[in-house]
């Protein structure tokens, strides 16, 4: 076994890109995911169908295929995107499909009487969704949604295939220079492990901060 401290510095150069991609895609995924979920629950038939097809496609095909379609495929139609934009787009559109299903489940888990009560007070449907349904759905979704964040952190590593130097990309470059594949990727793995640990702790903290008595899984038997 060989280990050199300078690897840590080299690999850390990929860290900002990994974080940037992860956070940007999660953000895209939240916005698009909530919209898709709302369309699936409250939309008319055609809208529900279109969103359903979108979700089916992105959940039903490999992420790598989606990335390659965007980065290598779109230029055939005259749409040439940078590796960074391609990566963001593929991962963002993909996680949106998964997040949409989490959000849909949470929206449907909010009891029906809540919407009825909101409407009976004179709120429009958009108002009821914004002030009553979503605040509850977000709290309900947080524990399971946290998984998606952690997955995204790790899935972001596929962007090395389109020559981006994220954590994984830096690892591959380093290893193919010194041929210490095993050792280098152990360090890469430890980096991801540490990231996941930190993100998990932050999400738990948020979960505790927004917790409301009687809402969510708190206090139930395990």
């Amino acid at each position, binding site marked *: 076994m060989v280990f050199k401290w300078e690897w840590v510095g080299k690999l850390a150069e990929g860290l900002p890109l990994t974080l940037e991609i992860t956070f940007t895609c999660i953000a895209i995924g939240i916005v698009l995911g909530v919209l898709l979920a709302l369309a699936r629950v409250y939309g008319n038939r055609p809208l529900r169908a279109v969103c359903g097809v979108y979700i089916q496609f992105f959940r039903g095909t490999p992420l790598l295929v989606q990335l390659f379609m965007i980065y290598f495929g779109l230029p055939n139609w005259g749409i040439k995107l940078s590796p960074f934009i391609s990566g963001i787009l593929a991962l963002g559109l993909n996680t949106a499909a998964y997040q949409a299903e989490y959000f849909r489940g949470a929206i449907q888990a909010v*009891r029906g*009487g*809540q919407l*009825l*009560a*909101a*409407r*009976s*007070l*004179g*709120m*429009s449907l958009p*108002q009821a969704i914004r*002030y*009553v349904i979503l*605040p*509850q759905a977000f*709290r309900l979704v947080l524990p399971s949604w946290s998984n998606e964040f952690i997955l995204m952190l790790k899935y972001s590593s596929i962007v090395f295939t389109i020559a981006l130097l994220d954590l994984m990309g830096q690892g591959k470059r380093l290893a193919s220079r010194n041929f210490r594949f095993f050792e280098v990727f152990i360090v890469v793995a430890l980096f991801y492990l540490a990231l996941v640990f930190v993100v998990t702790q932050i999400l738990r903290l948020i979960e505790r901060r927004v917790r*409301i*008595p*009687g*809402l969510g899984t708190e206090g139930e038997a395990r």
Partner: protein
Amino acid sequence: MNTLLRVEDIHKCYGKERVLTGVSFEMMKGDTKVIIGPSGTGKSTLLRCINRLTPADKGRVWLEDEEITHTRTNINRIRAQIGFVFQDFNLFSHLTALGNVRIAPTKVKGMKKAEATRLAMEELERVGLADKAGAYPAELSGGQQQRVSIARALAMSPKLILFDEPTSALDPELIGEVLDVMISLAKEGMTMLVVTHEMGFARAVADEIIFMERGIIVEHGPPAQLFSSPKHRRTGEFLHKITELYGETV
């Protein structure tokens, strides 16, 4: 006397089942009317048809001069003037008692938060729960939750409040506190349409009892008259039965 609410020939089917088959009645300002009848006779559906939480198949409803059932009527503006109290309270689980009472005045009427807070505290005071303003629904008893939901309706200064079996989901010892609030509202002149089995409440404050069965109004009249000399055999039987079953809490 001005007519506040006019319900005319309401019909409603769920699939093949005919729930309401031509219900008509009127309410004057300040009236308290109680609707009674066996379960499944369309009492709750009737209430929901009034503020269009459930659309009626046929028939019309007016609030003062405005036809609620007209498709071009802005239903949100109408609902803001008609309180609705649900059997299972339906307080917003993510908001405190204060938040529950304050949300509609701020979001629907555009009231400033400070003003809405003052108003909400007054309404909570009115139902005897000012000290629970910071509690979440899950931290309140059923009776307290229902009183908060009445305060929530009151905060919109409604012209009329519809009560859909407001005490049916409560433990017996909690029914009284809710009925007390409702009785004092009735005495203050609030216009109230109440679906309930609480005959004590009906006797105490109802101007009229409406007896419904199988989607129609069988008989209506002042409580004393309905209890002592009902015109229909079924009315007498039913009144006898629920008084025996539920007793008179008030």
